[in-house]
C-alpha cells in the first residue's frame, strides 16, 4: 500500500534529494507497517523524532509502536520545534 512520509526541519536531511523541495516522500510499505516501523526503517534518530502526526493527528510516543498505518496515510515528523 502507498503512504506518504513527510519529514521537516533538520529531519529533511533524511529525505532523498527528489523529495527535499516538497518534504513529501510517497512510498510503498507492507500492510501492517506501524509508525515505529517507519521511524526505524529510515533510521530517524530518537532525539529528533518529537512531533509525530498521522493525517494531522498527534501520535503519543507510547503509541508509535502500535499505531498501524493504513493506505494513503500521511505520516509527518518534526524534531523539537516551537514558534510564536
Amino acid at each position, binding site marked *: 500500500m502507498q503512504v506518504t512520509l513527510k519529514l521537516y*526541519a*533538520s529531519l529533511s536531511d533524511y529525505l532523498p534529494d527528489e523529495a527535499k523541495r516538497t*518534504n513529501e516522500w510517497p512510498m510503498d510499505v507492507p500492510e501492517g507497517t506501524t509508525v515505529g516501523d517507519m521511524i526505524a526503517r529510515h533510521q530517524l534518530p530518537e532525539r529528533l523524532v*518529537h*512531533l509525530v502526526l498521522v493525517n494531522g493527528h498527534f501520535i503519543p510516543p507510547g503509541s508509535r509502536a502500535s499505531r498501524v498505518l493504513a493506505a494513503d496515510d500521511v505520516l509527518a515528523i518534526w*524534531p*523539537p*520545534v*516551537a514558534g510564536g
Partner: protein
Amino acid sequence: MAWTRKILRVNLTDRTTKSEPLNMEWANDYLGQRGLATKYLVSEIDPKVDPLSPENKIIWATGPLTGTMASTGGRYSVVTKGPLTGAIACSNSGGYFGAELKFAGWDMVIIEGRASSPVYLSIENDKVEIRDASHLWGKTVWETEETLKSEHQDPQVRVSCIGRTGEAGVLYAAIVNDLHRAAGRSGVGAVAGSKNLKALVVRGTLGVGNLANPKEFMKVTFEKKKILKENAVTGQGLPTYGTQVLMNVINEIGAMPTRNHKDVQFEGARKISAEAMHEPRESDGKAQLVNNQGCFGCTIACGRISKIDQTHYTVVNSPKYWGASGGLEYEAAWSLGCANGVDDIEALQYANMLCNEDGFDPISFGATIGAVMELYEMGVLTKEEIGIEAPFGSARALTFLAEQTARGEGFGKIVGLGSKRLCEKYGHPELSMSVKGQEFPAYDARGVQGMGLTYATSNRGACHLRSYTISSEVLGIPVKTDPHTTEGKPALVKAFQDATAVVDSSGLCVFTTFAWALSDIQPQLQAACEGDWSMEKLDLMGERIWNMERQFNNAAGFTRKDDDLPPRLKTEAAKVGPAKGLVSGIDKMIPEYYALRGWDSEGRPTAETVARLGL
C-alpha cells in the same frame, strides 16, 4: 534591586521633563515593564479617554532584568490605551533599545500631552532634551534611525521610533527599534504619532550594577542559560529554523487560518515555510535566509535575517531593499501569505520589509487584506475602488496595498483603519476576523480550541502571546493536551495568561518558556531584586496584573459580549483536516473561565477577587 528607581516624566504640551522616584511599593506588587507600566497608566488616565487625544499617555518601560546578564534580558514594553481596540495596549519588543534605556538610568519613560509640532526625545544618561523633529516628519523608520545616528554622531545610540504610518494614524502602526524589532501590536505607534512624537533616542553608559545579590545572580543565570542551550527547542530548533518552522506544523494539523478564515489549510504553505527559506532559489541560487539573529543578551537567537530575490518584481528597480533585513517570522508569513492565499515568498518578504520600514503591524495589516480580498471576491469592493484587482492569491494586490498603506495613499488609507472598521464601512462587520477590533494571529480557533479562548479573553484584543496554549495543545510543552477539545482549556488558558503576565513584566522574553518554567525565572528575580520573590508571590502577581488590565477594560466599556469570536468561527465548521466538522466551543468555555477567574457573569472581577488580589 535591579530597578534604577527612576522614572522620566515628559510633558510634551509644556515641553518639560523631570525625574521622579519609582514607586517601589508598586514595583513590589507589579514587578516592572508590562505590570508596573500598566499600574502607572491605569492610575493616571481616564479609561474612557480618546486613545489619540493628548489626555492619553504612553509609557516605554523596562523590567528589573532588562539590561542584566539574564538570557533574553533585553525586553521593553510600550503601554498605552490602544486606538485599534480602545482597550489596554501593551506591546513588547526586543532588540537593543530596552537595555540601552536601562543603561541610561531609567526604568520607565512616561509621555504626556501633545507637542505643538514634531519632536523627538533625546536621552543621554541624565541629560534629557525634547528636540525638534520637523526634519524627521515624513521619514520612514529606517531613514529616521540613520538620520538620528548621524546627527548624534554616535552609531551606538538606540532609536525607538515611528514611521509614516504612525504619523498618519494607521490604527495598527507600530513602534520600531533597531530597524526591525517592534512593539508591533494594537497601534501604539499611532498614539506616539498623535502626540507629534517621532522617536526616543537613547545612549546609556551607566550599566546595570545594582543587583541585590550579584554573585548569586551570576551563578543562577549561568545555570539557566545552560538549560536553554541544552533544550532541543531553544538550543537548536529556534536558532536554526526560527518561528517559521511552525508553518508546516500548523498546516498539517488543519489549524492554518486561510483566505480570511474560510479555510483551515493552505495549499501553498510549504512554499512560504522555514524549509523554503533555507533552499537555494532558482533565480540566483541563493537561499532567502542569510542568518539568525539574537536580541540583547539572548542565548536563543530565533530572529530571521534574509535577503530578497533582487530580480523579483517588487524590488528589481529598488536596490535599497536588496540588503539583509529582518524576516520572515511565522506570524508575518502567515498574515501576509496564508490569510490572503498568497504563496510568493519574495512578495511576502517585500511586504514584511515595508511593515518594518514604515512601522506597521504585519498581523493586522495582512489580516485586513484578507478581508479586502473576500469583499472583492463578493463584488462588494471593486478594482476601481481598491486600485487593483484583488482576488485571493494576488501577490501584486498584497504588495500594492502594502505600499499604499505605508505611504498613506489611495485605498491604503482605508486599509489603515484595520479590518473591523473596514468591514463595517462596507456593510459586512462579520467578515472582520478580530476580537475587540484586533485581528487574529496565525492559529485557527476551530483546530486549536484553547486559542479561541485565548483570543476572546486577551486584554489587548486577539493575540496569541497573552496565553500561548499552542505550546501545550500542539507542541506538548510542558504537557500535551488535545487541541480539539474544550475540556480543561479555561484552566490552561488562565495558567498561561497569569504566568505570561509575570514574564512580560520581568524584562525577559516569553520564548524562554519553551524551556523554562516560571520556577526557572523565579530564582533569577530573587537574586536580582531585593525582598521576597517567591513562586507564591509571582503566581499571585500574574493574576493581579491580568485582573488590573481587565478592570481597565471594563471601565473603558468592555463587557461579556466583547469576549467573543466572529460568527464564522462559531458556525462554519472546518472543511478539511483533523478538525473537520469542528467549530469553536467558545460559548462553552467562557462561563467556566469566568468562574475560575473569580469574575461575575458579565466578566467583572468580584469584590472578593479584587480584595484577594489587593487591587
